C-alpha cells in the first residue's frame, strides 16, 4: 500500500466528483475535504508588471523573480499546502513535463506558505530517486504568505490558492488561473498559456 498514489474521491451532489490524487504514502496525506473553490481578492490582472519577490528555496539560497527578467519566461505555481491531496499530485506532473517548459524557454517556481523543513520532507517524498524535482520550490512562510498576499492568492485561512501565473521575459503577467482549490488544472491550459507568453 505504500507504493500507491491514493485517489481521494469526494462525491458532490451525486454525479460530480472531485478527484484529489496525492502522491506518496497514504497515511501522510492530510484529508482536507472539499473547500471553498476560491477565497481571495485578486490584486493583479493580465498586463500588470509582476511584483518582484525574493524567497528562500528548499535547495538552499534565495530566488528572486527579477533574476529571470529578460532571460526566462516564468511560471509560478502556488499550491495551498504540503501534505494535502491535490497539491501532492500536481507538481509530480510538472516534474516529468520539463520538456514543455524547456520548449517555451520557461522556468517553474513552486511556492507554498509552508516552512523549508516541511517543504524539504514533502518534495523529497514526492520526487523519484531517478528524477529529482528540476524546479525551485520556494517557501513563503515568513512573513507569512507575504508573496501570496501581494499576488492576491492568499486565502482567509492562511494558505495559498491553487494558482498558476505565467510571466513573460519582460516581467509582464500574461496568464492568471486562480483555480478551484479542489481540482487540478489541466496541463494543456498551461501549455497554451506558455505558448502565448513565449510570443511576447
Amino acid at each position: 500500500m505504500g507504493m500507491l498514489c491514493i485517489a481521494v474521491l469526494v462525491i458532490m451532489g451525486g454525479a460530480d466528483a472531485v478527484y484529489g490524487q496525492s502522491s506518496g504514502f497514504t497515511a501522510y496525506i492530510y484529508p482536507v475535504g472539499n473547500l471553498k473553490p476560491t477565497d481571495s481578492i485578486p490584486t493583479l490582472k493580465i498586463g500588470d508588471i509582476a511584483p518582484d519577490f525574493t524567497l528562500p528555496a528548499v535547495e538552499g539560497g534565495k530566488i528572486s523573480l527579477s533574476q529571470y527578467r529578460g532571460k526566462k519566461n516564468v511560471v509560478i505555481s502556488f499550491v495551498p499546502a504540503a501534505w494535502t491531496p491535490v497539491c501532492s499530485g500536481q507538481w509530480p506532473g510538472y516534474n516529468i513535463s520539463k520538456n514543455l517548459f524547456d520548449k517555451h524557454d520557461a522556468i517553474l517556481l513552486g511556492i507554498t506558505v509552508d516552512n523549508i523543513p516541511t517543504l524539504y520532507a514533502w518534495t523529497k517524498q514526492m520526487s523519484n530517486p531517478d528524477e529529482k524535482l528540476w524546479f525551485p520550490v520556494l517557501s513563503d512562510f515568513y512573513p507569512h504568505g507575504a508573496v501570496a498576499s501581494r499576488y492576491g492568492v492568499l486565502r482567509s485561512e492562511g494558505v495559498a490558492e491553487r494558482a498558476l501565473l505565467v510571466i513573460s521575459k519582460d516581467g509582464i503577467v500574461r496568464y492568471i488561473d486562480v483555480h478551484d482549490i479542489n481540482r487540478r488544472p489541466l496541463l494543456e491550459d498551461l501549455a497554451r498559456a506558455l505558448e502565448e507568453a513565449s510570443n511576447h
Partner: protein
Amino acid sequence: MEGNKRRIVSTLCILLAVSLLSVTASFGAESITVLGGSVKSDSGGNQGIPTIELPMPVSEQGKSYLGLSGTGNFKIGQIKSQVLIIEIYSLYCPHCQRAASRVNELLRLIQERPDIKEKIKIIGIGVNNSMYEVESYRERYKVPFPLFPDLTMEVSQKFNVRGTPTFIGLKVNGKGMLEKFYFAEGGFQDAQQFLMEIIQLSGLK
C-alpha cells in the same frame, strides 16, 4: 404483543431482502470475487465486468495491436486477446512514473514470447487525465502500448479503483465472456514475476 411486533419486523425484513434481491436480479448483476475486492457486471456487453467503452486509438499501430478498426468508441471486449492487463495510472502519480519502465518491460517480455504475444495485451488508462496529459506521459516514458484518457474517472470508478497505479487482469472465459481475475493496487517490482503470475492466475494455455 411483543411477539407480534417481532414477527411483523421479521416479515418486513424478509420482504425487504427479497425485494432487494429481485432488483439486483433484474439488473442481471453478478458479483465476482477478485483479489482485492469485487466488481459487479451489468446486463449488457461483457458478462462479469462493467461495460467499458474507450475511444478508438488514433494510431494505426494502436488499432493493429488491439485488433481493432474504424473510428468512434469501442468496447474493451472487442480487443483481440485472451487476457487483457489494464494499468490505471496518472501523469501526476510519482509511483506510476517509477513503475513506467517496468510496465514497458512487461510488454517487451510478452512480445518476445511467440506463444503468448497475441494472447496477452496491455492498455493504460489515465485516471483524471486529459488526452493531452496522456500523450505527455506516453512521450515522456515512450510507452509502447495504447493509453486512454479517463478525465471524468468513469472507467476507474466502474472498476472501483481507489489509487494508482492499479493493475487489473481480465480474461475471456469458457463462455467467450470477459471475467476479472486480477486486481491489485500498487506496482510490481519484477516484470517477469508479474507476467508469470498473470499467466498462472488467468489459466492461459
